[in-house]
């Protein structure tokens, strides 16, 4: 057997074993939750394939999570109605369907919020290169991994899981925010406050269905 063909089958076998042996993500908010497993994404083109084109991922997510889809609706996070420099945070910027993991403090990381895992297998969000703010966890060669805990979507966890109110600011929302008027993770803007609607969950106003833009 040629090496290339052999390698293909090895990769295929490893992938299939990994797939079968991995407890993947499940939607946790709806009583109509749909079990998400390998085939849901990796057979989207027909026959089972192990890799997805990176460009297909957002489209694949939105074909279920977009308007008219079968799952909880969501939209990508971009700078509509803001003066913030152009950005577009797509699904993989915050979520990874393979990371139904514990986080670094030993609790369950929910909503698949985290796009990388750290060296202790904890879930993290890999933020863009730091925008002048403090880098909590620098990555060799550049970039900044900000430690992320997202274990509680309720109001109880609003002040830590969504937008931390005291440094280090590691909430799901403020890990990336460096220029917002509220809940930013740096001290670049002395007028920024960390008390904005701390008794509410961020997404009660900043809907994911509208890209978090209010």
């Amino acid at each position: 057997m040629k090496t290339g063909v052999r390698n293909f089958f090895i990769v295929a076998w490893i992938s299939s074993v990994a797939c079968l042996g991995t407890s993947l993500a499940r939607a946790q908010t709806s009583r109509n939750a749909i079990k998400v497993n390998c085939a849901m994404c990796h057979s989207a083109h027909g026959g089972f394939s192990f890799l997805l084109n990176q460009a297909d991922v957002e489209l694949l997510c939105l074909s279920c999570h977009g308007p008219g889809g079968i799952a909880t609706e969501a939209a990508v996070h971009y700078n509509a109605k803001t003066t913030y420099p152009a950005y577009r945070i797509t699904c993989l910027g915050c979520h990874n369907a393979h990371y139904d993991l514990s986080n670094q403090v030993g609790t369950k990381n929910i909503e698949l919020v985290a796009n990388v895992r750290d060296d202790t297998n904890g879930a993290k969000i890999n933020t863009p290169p730091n925008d002048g703010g403090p880098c909590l966890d620098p990555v060799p060669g550049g970039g900044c991994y900000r430690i992320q805990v997202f274990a509680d979507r309720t109001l109880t966890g609003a002040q830590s899981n969504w937008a931390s109110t005291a440094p280090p600011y590691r909430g799901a929302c403020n890990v990336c925010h460096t220029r917002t008027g509220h809940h930013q993770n740096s001290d670049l803007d002395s007028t920024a406050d960390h008390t904005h609607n701390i008794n509410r969950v961020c997404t009660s106003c900043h809907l994911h269905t509208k890209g978090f833009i209010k």
Partner: protein
Amino acid sequence: MCDRKHIQVMSRLGHPLGIVFLLLFFLASTCVNAQVPASPRRIAELDKKAILITDINTDLQGTLVALDKATMQVVWTCTVPGEPLGVAHWKNLYLVGDSASGNVSVYRMAGANRGLPCSGTAAGKSLEFLFNLGQTQPGAPGFFQKVNDVALDVDLQRIFVVDTGEKKVKVFDNKGNFLHSFPEIAPTLLNPTAIAVDETRQEVLVSDFGDPSGSFSPTVPPRIMIFSYSGNYLGQITSDSSNASSYFSKPQGLSVDGSGQVFLVDAFLAKVLVLDRVTGAWIRSFGGPGDQPGDLKLPLDLLLDRATGDVFVTSNMTGRVEVFRTAGRVP
């Protein structure tokens, strides 16, 4: 103020009016204040000359937009509350499913200040809210858990609504009274999305994602389920994963022509499949993925104009409505 994106879209399409508007934008102080599709969702026929789409505009405001079939220019725009999705039109009535509130609301075009405002040729008018279909109490007959698409049989005055959450089609009369829902027995709908009515055969066709669970292939593949108006199961067209031509992945909007050809748009594969209603056989496909004019990206719905054979497709992520002239080949 003129909508710059409107001009850009028409110019990109090479539309002569787009070039005219582009000149006017810079040279004149007044222009048509028309809003354009930014995130077009579902589509319905308005009349012989126009189509109707639901949209979330660049201000994240829900709108109902009428587009001229020939020029694809905006005829009028009306603001509607929430996040409009499914849409249907009958006489002066507009049925709009709202994925935010879960209601299907019935409006009529009325004078100013009777509802949210309109612009374009409907300037000075507004959409007046009349009533919601169904009931608002969970578990009550006709309550919607996750409203999705809407279709009408104008002659029989029946309204069909697909509820993705409850996995049912709910049927109402033209007064909004709940009549019945289906299917009540197997085979059931698993993850229904869009709906079409075949008035000729008095059939209801429903796009269904099937059951995607299963390690290497879906437990139940994507399919189109076909029922009689009374809800009796008549058959289905099933996606064939062994054939790249006839395979579909995320079935959304659909239409059926007089000869029994089913037109189905796939949100992920970004193409329109033409399938035989009886055998399920693939006949042909058109459209393809991309970001350029003519391309599709997350297409959610289609409308077949039976008179001209034109097929209109809402391409959600490109913010356009694409027209495939005579792709239905009816004339």
